């Protein structure tokens, strides 16, 4: 969480009324208003003098608009944390906001709970990421265990898997991309025999061909990742995780690598056979909300 000192906010809005309203609700939540600007002319000077933690930025202003003002501020201080607070909010303005590099976007009239959540996330993004990394593997493990136990009626045992060397596939690898505040990847890997046994349990007859078994593998991975991301989103709304459709790799000796992302792996031992799951997240989404 924030340290105990007040969050220092600078308001940029051409309307004195809007500035007063926003100042009032922010002050009620313990923020300190350290500066105000009504146009690009006074913007950079005020920012440099008051050094705020957060800048709220209106979009529609006479002369330079909020995007141009944001660009000017970010040239001055690339670390400036700007939150657009505007009555105008649609796909185009959100896309432009992302391109410009602001850290958040809240529609006017600003819901103060929402605005404070965006401010807190902007000031402590590392904490949210850390929460995800800490919770993430346990929740994916729990989801995998629940989904196996549902079929086997038996508990699952886990062992950690060493991912320091390149991972060889057991036969079928399902890769699921995760999108959200922090993007990530889940990889589920098991043998064709395991897939056949699971398919037989689900369909109550043997798999007719490899396609049935690999389709089941994709669906199983989809359910595991979907359940885990829902559980994470319930715990931390700001994560907004969603899963992309699975890609399934099989039919030849295969090695898997996830460069540039720290993955954690474990093996679930079940009566279907061993199932490997690895999961990792990284900072830096193409989108920010």
């Amino acid at each position, binding site marked *: 969480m924030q340290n105990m000192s007040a969050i220092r906010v600078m308001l940029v809005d051409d309307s004195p009324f809007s500035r007063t309203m926003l100042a009032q609700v922010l002050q009620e939540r313990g923020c300190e208003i350290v500066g105000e600007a009504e146009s690009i002319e006074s913007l950079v000077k005020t920012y440099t003098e008051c050094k705020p933690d957060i800048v709220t930025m209106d979009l529609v202003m006479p002369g330079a608009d909020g995007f141009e003002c944001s660009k000017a501020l970010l040239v001055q201080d690339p670390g400036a944390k700007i939150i657009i607070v505007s009555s105008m909010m649609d*796909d*185009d303005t*959100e*896309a432009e906001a*992302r*391109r410009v590099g602001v850290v958040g976007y809240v529609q006017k009239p600003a819901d103060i709970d929402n605005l404070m959540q965006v401010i807190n996330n902007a000031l402590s993004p590392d904490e949210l990421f850390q929460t995800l990394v800490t919770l993430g593997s346990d929740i994916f493990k729990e989801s995998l265990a629940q989904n196996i136990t549902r079929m086997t009626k038996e508990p699952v045992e886990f062992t950690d898997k060493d991912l320091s060397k390149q991972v060889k*596939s057991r036969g079928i*690898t399902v*890769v*699921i*991309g*995760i*999108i*959200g505040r922090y*993007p*990530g*990847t889940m*990889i589920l890997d098991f043998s064709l025999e395991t897939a056949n046994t699971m398919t037989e349990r689900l369909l109550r007859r043997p798999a007719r061909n490899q396609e049935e078994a*690999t*389709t089941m593998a*994709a669906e199983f991975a*989809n359910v595991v990742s979907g359940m885990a991301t829902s559980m994470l989103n319930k715990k931390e709304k700001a994560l907004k995780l*969603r*899963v*992309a*459709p*699975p*890609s*399934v*790799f*099989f*039919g*030849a*000796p*295969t*090695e*898997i*690598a*996830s*460069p*540039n*992302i720290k993955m954690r792996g474990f093996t679930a031992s079940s009566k279907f056979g061993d199932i490997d799951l690895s999961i*990792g997240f*990284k900072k830096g*989404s*193409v*989108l920010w909300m």
Partner: protein
Amino acid sequence: MDVNVINPILEAFATILPQIGFQKVEKKSVSLMGSMLVNTGLMINIGVMGPLKGAIVIGMDIDSAKMFASKMMMGMAVTELDSLAQSAIAEMGNMVCANACMAYSQSGINGLDISPPTLVLGKDGQVRLSVPKIIAVSFSVDNIGVDVYVGLYS
């Protein structure tokens, strides 16, 4: 799937590659396929979510991947696809797809996001994407063969 849907990805490919050391990006062929692909050596899988969903997969054979990584690393000799070379290739995939998201946004398709790249090494392996159709585009990049597979649906 409308074939024009791939234009932002082609644009991104042609924009990013010259920025990372390649001079000549030529489009060789475009074809429409079902959901199955064959891995010729290495594949970069990137998941896509938003108004379009699916995966973008970039594939090449292992020798091409080594040449590709070598070019990206300013001509450094790459005799095997070690973690540095893999990282370089994955980053290329990430840059192309992130740039494609921006290009989609400029063409009015907002809110696309991508997952981090996963590399899958396994010659002759089969790949099934969870999409009805895939558009395959073959490129020659400074005479290195690279295939881009776009499996997206709305």
